[in-house]
């Protein structure tokens, strides 16, 4: 970075932006700083997009499964299984706190187990498959609620087993939560790495422009004036790098989104970013510019304090 104090401006107290702009070095993409910031911003955008997408996935899954219970009638005798299933369905429909209850059609059950047991596996003479009832409660499903349902069905369907649907996905939610924390940690670490890179760049610029700084200092330039020169210079680099990094990051996120969308899986689809998510990603370079300028300012001010 080369300090530029070109014609037509001032560095006095109360400088306007225009006057200050004349004193800052021109942004030069030939230096490493814009590229370092571009890479950092791209990685932060990708990590943040992953974190947001995972959060959306978990949120959608929780919303879908919240209040959901599955009643299985585990009875080897097909006639008794059918009778108990109908009785349980009737019982559930009339219970307070149960919003809806539906018998899962045999076709759906067949489709669910087909990948593991093959076609026609639920025939009466083959493996006995439990009858399934999908019920939705008004509130969330607590152990006490499960016990209440179990008590209500004990008489009508003694072979009924009741599970909260969210319990099945607890390990998945745990894993998603871990990945979210990982994404957050990555964003934090990349931010720190960028601050460190800017710090080194500012120190290097300070060293290579020491002569100029001393002159400005001895002619009555204040620390804040000198820091502004560096701050602005690194800010210009950061804006260029941030814009490039955002573009790179968005391209990568869109590419990955398209690849995941082609999987056609419900959970993955629910991770799509909304407007808020995209706006948050757009704020990454803004934060990077602010971080870079703040780091430059503080490091230069600290170095200047060593001078008289």
């Amino acid at each position: 970075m080369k300090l530029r104090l070109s014609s037509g401006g001032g560095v006095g107290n109360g400088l306007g932006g225009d006057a200050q702009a004349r004193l800052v070095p021109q942004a030069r993409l030939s230096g490493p700083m814009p590229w370092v910031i571009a890479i950092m911003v791209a990685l932060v955008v990708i990590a943040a997009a992953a974190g947001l997408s995972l959060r959306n996935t978990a949120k959608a899954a929780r919303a879908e499964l919240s209040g959901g219970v599955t009643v299985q009638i585990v009875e080897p005798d097909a006639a008794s299984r059918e009778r108990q299933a109908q009785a349980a369905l009737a019982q559930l429909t009339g219970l307070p706190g149960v919003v809806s209850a539906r018998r899962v059609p045999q076709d759906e059950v067949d489709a669910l187990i087909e990948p593991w047991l093959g076609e026609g596996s639920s025939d009466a003479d083959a493996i006995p498959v439990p009858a399934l009832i999908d019920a939705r409660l008004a509130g969330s499903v607590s152990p006490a609620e499960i016990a209440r349902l179990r008590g209500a069905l004990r008489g009508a369907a003694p072979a009924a087993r009741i599970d909260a649907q969210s319990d099945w996905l607890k390990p998945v939610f745990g894993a998603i939560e871990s990945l979210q924390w990982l994404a957050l940690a990555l964003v934090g670490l990349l931010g720190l790495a960028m601050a460190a890179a800017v710090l080194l760049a500012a120190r290097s610029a300070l060293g290579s422009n020491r002569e100029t700084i001393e002159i400005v200092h001895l002619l009555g330039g204040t620390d804040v004036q000198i820091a502004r020169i560096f701050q602005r210079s690194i800010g210009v680099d950061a804006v260029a790098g941030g814009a490039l990094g955002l573009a790179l990051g968005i391209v990568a996120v869109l590419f990955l989104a398209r690849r995941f969308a082609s999987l056609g899986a419900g959970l993955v689809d629910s991770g799509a970013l909304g407007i808020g998510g995209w706006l948050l990603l757009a704020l990454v370079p803004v934060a990077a510019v602010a971080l870079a300028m703040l780091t430059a300012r503080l490091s230069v001010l600290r170095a200047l304090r060593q001078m008289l």
Partner: protein
Amino acid sequence: MNKPADGEIVQFDNVGLRYGAGREVLSDLSFTLFPGSFYFITGASGAGKTSLLKLLYLAQRPSRGMIRMFGADAITLPRERLPLMRRRMGVVFQDFRLVPHLSAFDNVALPLRIAGASEKEVTKPVRDMLDWVGLSERMDARPATLSGGEQQRVAIARAVIGRPEILVADEPTGNVDPDMAIKLLRLFEALNRLGTTVLVATHDLHLLQKVPDSLIMRLDKGRLTDPTGALRFPPRRPARAPQGVQ
């Protein structure tokens, strides 16, 4: 300690300076500079002239003693207030210290811009000043393309452009021909007549005779001697009453 004289612009009292753990390069300096006075500091190379000037333009703190400038204690003054004090001075550095990537115009304009002058307030005075030192044709030239004498004239123009209250010049005529040396000296005198205190460090004894009424301080191995009464107490006031100085 000497009692501060009324209206003094600079007062040194028992000032000593050593670099690190070395011997004192300046010892027991006590003197007062009045507004509107013209001083020469002479002495052989290594006598401590540049070190004394560094104390004056606040590039160095003394190891001991007291320095008052513009009525304030320059040693205990908070660091944030030093820039404003520096803006009241003009300095011609021995090695010119021009900003290498700025043109002659921008180098001369630097003190005005640092002080927050608008472009309107900068352009004409800078052009006039460069014209006066004979560099109107070299306004856009970078220091590396200027001769030693031209660089020195840019450095002098930069030092005086802001009409400083005190001008400190370290060998300001060392790289210019005798005619230009006289011309620059006349510029310093003109400034002096307008109220600027001028302090010129030089080893050119001929120069001293060119400015009547100037006071001379001689440095010898870091100590001041007083051939013209510049150091006596009460200090000798300038012979002429400069304009704008009460």
